[in-house]
C-alpha cells in the first residue's frame, strides 16, 4: 500500500503544478516532546522539547529554543533507579562527546556550535542490558509523564555481503542474510554508516543513516531464512549519476547497525517512517504517531538491542 501511495504521488506530481499558499490551519496546541532512548551497553539519554506551531519560525534559534531544561527525569530497571543529570553540549563530561554527537546527529566538531541540553546518566548500573525493562518518569512544569520499554534479544545477521547491481560491475546494494526466529514477534531497524574516508580525509558519514523503509517486522517471513538488500541512503544527491543512485561503489566500507525493538517502539517507528514518507500526502491518511508515554506528550521512550556488522563492498 505504501508503494501505491508513492506511485500515485509521483503520477500526480508529474501532471500537476504546485504553489505555496497561506491558509488557516486551526487547532494548534503546545505539547511536551519526550525523545528518550536506551541501547544495549549504552546510558539512557532523554531530550525534552516542545512542539511548535506549523507557521512558527524555523530558524536555528527556534529549533534550539524548543529544548527544555529543568525537568526531573528518572530511569529504573526494576532494581536500580537513577535520576538523570542534565548535560549541555557546551559542557559535556569528558569522553561523552562522541556518544552525544551521535545521538544529536552532528559531528563532534559541531557540538560546540549548538546549544542543546539533554538528560543522561553514566552510572553503569543503569546502562542498557538485554532482557531488561526500563521505566522512565519525567516531571516537568507540574506534570508527570511515564513510559516503559524493553531491550529485547537481538538477532544478528547470518552474513552480510555486497554484489553489483544488474549489469553494473562497480556499484551495488548492501545485502544481508537473516534467519528470523520462528513463532514470536520480531521487529527490526536497519541503519548504516560509511566509515571509509572520503576525499576530505574524513569518514564519509558522521553518524548512522536510515535508508527508505528501514523499519519492518516479521509478519511476512516469520521463521524464514532469506537474503534481502537495502540501498545507500547517502547516494541520492544530484551529483550522482541516475544509474548509481542508491548504490554503494566498490570499495566502500559500511557498518550496519541492525537493531531490534519491542512492539510499542515498533508501532512508533513504523508510523514515524510512514509519516516521513507520506506527510501531507493526500493519498495517505493523516498519521499521528502513537507513543508509549502516558500523559499528553509526544515522542517515544525506546529500547534497542543492536547488532553490528562491517561490510566491505567487494565481490
Amino acid at each position, binding site marked *: 500500500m505504501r508503494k501505491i501511495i508513492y506511485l500515485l504521488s509521483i503520477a*500526480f506530481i508529474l501532471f*500537476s503544478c*504546485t504553489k505555496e499558499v497561506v*491558509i488557516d490551519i*486551526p487547532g494548534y496546541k503546545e505539547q511536551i516532546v519526550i525523545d528518550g532512548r536506551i541501547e544495549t551497553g549504552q546510558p539512557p539519554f532523554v531530550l525534552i522539547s516542545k512542539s511548535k506551531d*506549523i507557521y512558527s519560525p524555523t530558524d536555528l534559534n527556534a529549533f534550539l529554543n524548543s529544548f527544555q531544561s529543568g525537568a526531573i527525569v528518572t530511569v529504573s530497571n526494576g532494581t536500580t533507579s537513577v535520576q538523570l543529570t542534565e548535560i549541555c553540549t557546551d559542557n559535556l563530561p569528558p569522553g561523552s562527546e562522541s556518544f552525544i554527537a551521535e545521538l544529536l546527529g552532528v559531528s563532534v566538531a559541531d557540538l560546540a556550535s549548538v546549544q542543546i541540553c539533554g538528560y543522561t546518566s553514566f552510572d553503569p548500573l543503569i546502562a542498557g542490558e538485554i532482557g531488561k525493562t526500563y521505566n522512565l518518569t519525567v516531571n516537568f512544569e507540574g506534570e508527570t509523564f511515564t513510559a516503559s520499554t524493553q531491550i529485547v534479544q537481538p538477532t544478528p545477521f547470518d552474513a552480510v555481503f555486497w554484489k553489483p547491481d544488474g549489469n553494473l560491475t562497480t556499484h551495488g546494494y548492501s545485502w544481508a542474510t537473516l534467519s528470523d526466529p520462528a513463532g514470536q514477534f520480531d521487529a527490526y531497524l536497519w541503519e548504516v554508516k560509511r566509515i571509509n574516508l572520503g576525499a576530505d580525509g574524513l569518514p564519509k558519514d558522521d553518524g548512522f543513516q536510515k535508508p527508505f523503509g528501514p523499519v519492518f517486522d516479521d509478519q*511476512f517471513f516469520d521463521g524464514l531464512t532469506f537474503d534481502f538488500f537495502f540501498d545507500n541512503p547517502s547516494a541520492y544527491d544530484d551529483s550522482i549519476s541516475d544509474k548509481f543512485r542508491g548504490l554503494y561503489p566498490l570499495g566502500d566500507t559500511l557498518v550496519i547497525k541492525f537493531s531490534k525493538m519491542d512492539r510499542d517502539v515498533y508501532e512508533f517507528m513504523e508510523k514515524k517512517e510512514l509519516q516521513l514518507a507520506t506527510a501531507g500526502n493526500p493519498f495517505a*491518511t493523516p498519521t499521528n504517531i502513537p507513543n508509549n508515554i502516558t500523559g499528553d506528550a*509526544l515522542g517515544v521512550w525506546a529500547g534497542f538491542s543492536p547488532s553490528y556488522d562491517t561490510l566491505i563492498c567487494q565481490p
Partner: protein
Amino acid sequence: MRNNLITFLFSFIITVTFSQENSTLSGYITDARSGETVIGAKIYIPSVKKGAITNNYGFYSLTVPSGKYLVEFRMGGQETEKKEIDLSQDVRLDFEMGADFQDIEEVTVDAKAKENTESTKVGQIELSIDEIKTLPAFMGEVDIIKTIQLLPGVSSAAEGGQGFYVRGGGPDQNLVLLDEAIVYNAAHLFGFFSVFNADAVKSVNLIKGSMPANFGGRMSSVLEVNMNEGNKKRFGVKGGIGAISSRLTIEGPLKKDKGSFIVSARRTYLDVIMKAAIPDDSPFAGTSYFFYDLNLKMNYEISKKDKIFLSGYYGKDEFSFGNLDDNFQIDMPWGNGIAALRWNHIFSSKLFMNVTATMTDYQFSFISSQDQFRFKLNSGIRDWGGKVDFTYFPNTRHKVKFGLDYIYHIFTPVSVSAENDDTVFDTGEPQRLTSHESAAYILDEFDINENLRINAGLRYSMYQQVGPFTRYIKGDVSTPDTSITYKKGDVIQFYNGLEPRVALRWMLPDKSSIKAGYSYNYQYVHLTSLSAVSLPTDIWYPTTDIAKPQKGWQTSLGYFRNFLQNKLETSVEVYYKGMNNLIEYKEGAIPGDNINDNTDNLLVFGKGWSYGIEFFLKKSSGKFTGWVGYTLSKTEREFADLNDGNPYPAKYDRRHDLSVVGSYKLNKRWIFSGAFIYATGNTLTLPTSWYVQNQDLLFNYGERNSTRMAPYHRLDISATWYSKEYKEKYDKTTGETIKVKKKLKTNVAISVYNVYNRANPYFLYVDNDGDFLQGDFEIKVKQVTLFPIIPSVTWNFEF
C-alpha cells in the same frame, strides 16, 4: 407496526372497481428514425385529463372509460403527435414517433417539463443525452458523471475526483446502474473520466431524493444509465476523434424492426503520446497510461409480447510506471466487466414483467517488481444477480410495481503475494468474503384525487454473510489472537430490515406543487478509503459480523413551479439525511496484508448527517436553454474512535455549491455553451504543529478535516459547429437544383476548460526542506493544482 404498514399499502393496491366500463390502451413507443424504444414519452388524453409515461423499456399502459379519444403522443424536443383511437375495448398500439422529424432551430417545450410539478418524483432529474453532448467537455470527452455533478445536491470530491457525492452521502452510497447491472467503479483515469461512453448511452436518470422501493442496496442516490439499443431500421456508424481519445460506434438491425445491435468502443492514446514524449533511453521509458472500453447491446423481439436484451460492458485502465535505472516497474490495471440479460414480457395490457440476470466484475491490481523482489496486490468484487420486476396498471389511478432482487457477492478486499528470488513470503491465504443479498418490494403510485398523488412502497431486504471465512480476533497485550473458521455455506451473520419509502405531491391551484418524501435504506456494501481523494485503491468491503450494514434515512420537502407556459421550471427543496454504521479506517491504519487479520479489524464505525436547501431553475426550451442550481448544505461525521469522538466535517462538506449552465443554439449550424461552477473548498486534515525526534522532523495533526481549502470555481465554454445536413444537386429530369440530405453528418466541438486559468486546489500538503543546523530550514503549505486552461477540439461524425 409492520402489519399495519403492509395492510395500509395493500389497501391502496386492491383498488376501487369503477362502476363505468374501462378500456386499456397499451404498447411500446418507438422512435421512427431508429426503431428504438423511447423512455419517458408521454401518452395523454386531454378530454379525460389522463396520461401515462413510457417506462425504461418504452412500454405504457393507460386505462380510461371506454370511448373514442384523441390521444396525444409527446416525446422530448419534438412536436406533439395526435391520433384518434377507438377505445371501446382494450387496444394494443405500438406507436412510432418522429416520422416527420425536422431539425428545428430551437428546442420546443419538453413533454417532461410538466413533470417538474406533476410527478411524485422528489429529487429526481432526467438528463437528455443530447443536452449533455452540447455542454463543454473536458479534453473533448463528453462525460455523464461530470454533467450530473452540475446539478444541485450533487458534487464531485475534487477536480477529477472519482465518484460523486449526493446530499452528503459517500461515493459508495450511489447505486450506479448500467442497464440494471451495478457499476462499482464508474471512473477512468483516477476519476477524470467516467466509464460511460456518451455515444452508447440513451438516457440518464438521477434519483437523489426519495428512492422508490424498487431500488435498494444504497443509501443516497440512484444513477440509472440506459444504453442505446441500436438502430432497427438501418446500419449506421458514428464516432469521434478527440484530443486524447477516439470513439467508434456501429449499429444496425439484426432483423429489420425486430432486433438490433450496437457496438461502441473507445480508447485513449495518452500512452502513445507519452511514448513519443519519453525517450527510449530515459529512466522512465516504462511509464504509460491508457484506458479503453467497449459497450455492446443486442435486442430482439421474439413476439409481440416478448423481447430480450443482452447488454455488455468491458473497460480497463492500465497505468505503468518504470524506472529502468533501478530495474523498478509498477503496473496498475483496473477495470469493470458487466453483463445483463433481460427479458420483457407483456402478460396483458395491464401487467408488464422484466426479468434481469446480471454479472458485475470489478478488479484492481498492483504489481511491482524490483530486481528479484516481486509484489502483487489484488482486490475486487464479483456479483451475480437476478431480478424480477412486475409493473401492474390496474386503472388510471394506480401504477403498482413489485418484485424480487437477489445478488450473490464475492469480495476480495485485499490479496497480497510477495516473492524475493526463490523465497516466497507468507502473506496468508487470500481472503474472499461471500454473501447473499436479497429483497422483496412493492410500491404503488396512485392518485387519491386530482391534486394529491402518493408513491408509497415497502422494501424488505436480507443479507447473509456465508463461509468459507476465517474470523481473526485480535487480542491485546495479555490476550493472544484467536480465530474462528467457518466452512463453505456456514451462515456467519444475518441481517434484515424493512425499508419504507413514501413520496407525495400536492398540486396547488396556481399549478405549482408541493412534494415531500421519506425513505429508509439499508446498504450492505462499504467503500473504505485511506486518502483525502478517492482513488481506485479504495477498497470495497461487504457487511460482515463486525462491519454492520449502513442504515440511512432521508426526508425532503420541496416547492415546484413552472413559469412561462412550462418553459421555465423551478424548485426549492430542503432535506435532512441521517446515516448510521458508516466506516473509516482507524487512525494510522495501512491495509497491506492478510496474515492472521481481517480488513474490518482495521475499521472504526460511526454516524453522519447532512442537511441543506437546494434551488433549481431550468429553462429547457427555446434557443437558450440551461439551468442554475445552488445548494446550501452541511455534512458532518461522528466516530467514537476518531477525532476524540467529536463531530467533524465530512471531507466533501460544502457550504455553498453553485452551477450555472447555459446553451445557446444560434442556428442549425452553431451551438454555444458554457458552465460556471463555484463551490466551497473541501476539508482536509493538515498538521497543526511540528516537533523533532531523533533528528527527524515530525508533524502532529489537529482535528480531523479542520482545514478548508480555497473555494473551487471554474468556467468552461464550448462551441459546436454542425455541417450542413443538405447538399444541392442538379436534377437532370426537371432541370432544377434540389436539396438532397447528406449521408455524412459531422460536427466539430471546440471546448475550453477553465477559461480564466483558475488554480483550483486539488490538495494541500506541508512541505519541509533544509537543515535546522544550517539555518535554512523551512516549512511551507503547498497547494497542488491539476488543470490549467485546457482547450480541446473533437471531430464527430455519423453516417
